[in-house]
């Protein structure tokens, strides 16, 4: 991974097309500004993982139906009781 030190107001240019500017640095957080062509998809890293899980989640009801899905939760309730008995 390439690591570059930048101050607020400075930026980097990727492939002459995508510009990332450090807009603000405060309290352990960085605010970034991004300029990119419209066909470039930009998203937070964690959003990609959320999308993967959402696609999986959307397959639950087609696979087992609403009743089957609700039955999963009944089992889940039992697991929670066991957890409490285990003193967690």
């Amino acid at each position, binding site marked *: 991974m390439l690591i570059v030190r930048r101050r607020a107001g400075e930026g980097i240019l990727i492939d002459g097309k995508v510009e990332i500017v450090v807009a603000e640095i405060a309290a352990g957080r960085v605010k970034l500004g991004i300029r990119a062509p419209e066909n470039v998809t930009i998203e937070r890293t964690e959003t990609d993982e*959320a999308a*993967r899980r959402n696609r999986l*989640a959307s397959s*639950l009801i087609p696979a087992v139906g*609403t009743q089957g899905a609700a039955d*999963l939760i009944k089992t*889940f309730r039992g697991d929670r009781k066991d957890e409490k008995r285990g003193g967690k």
Partner: protein
Amino acid sequence: MTHFDPANGPASSVSNGPAADGIGLLHSPWFGEVRWDETSEVSFPAGLPGFDDCRRMIAIEIPSHRPVLYLQSVDRPTVCFMTLPVQYVSPGFTARLNEDDAAALARRPGELPGAGSLLWLAMVVPTPTGAIANLDAPIVVDVTSGVGIQTSLAVGQSDDSTRKSPCVEAVC
């Protein structure tokens, strides 16, 4: 919220028709014909990750399935998510709205699950051995405004125990 009686809801085709007098109508493959008051819709202005086109949802509750809440897409009737209140999945769950999410909901940053009219839901995700509830990316609905988002929690936004065990195993 729309209540649904399974005894009267045969599965059928997948198309949604025009609304009349503020009443929406769709044919869900999972609930059959569903009618709802359009003022009770949940609007996701940014869609959901992986489902950018799903911007209108209705929350469906089946009394015998409580506390499950189904989020049925109006835009794509084949899409339906099963969710649970985060506090049901993990009674000690705490997380705070970050600035971006608070702005999207027109709320104050730092609001906690259970605060005001915010409903925090965890999506149920199937796994090879059962299912997990995704506490890493809860859905937050402002019940008053009918606006929802799916937030992705960064480290420090939720409590330590949640971060150590972000997904609670539902079934083994």
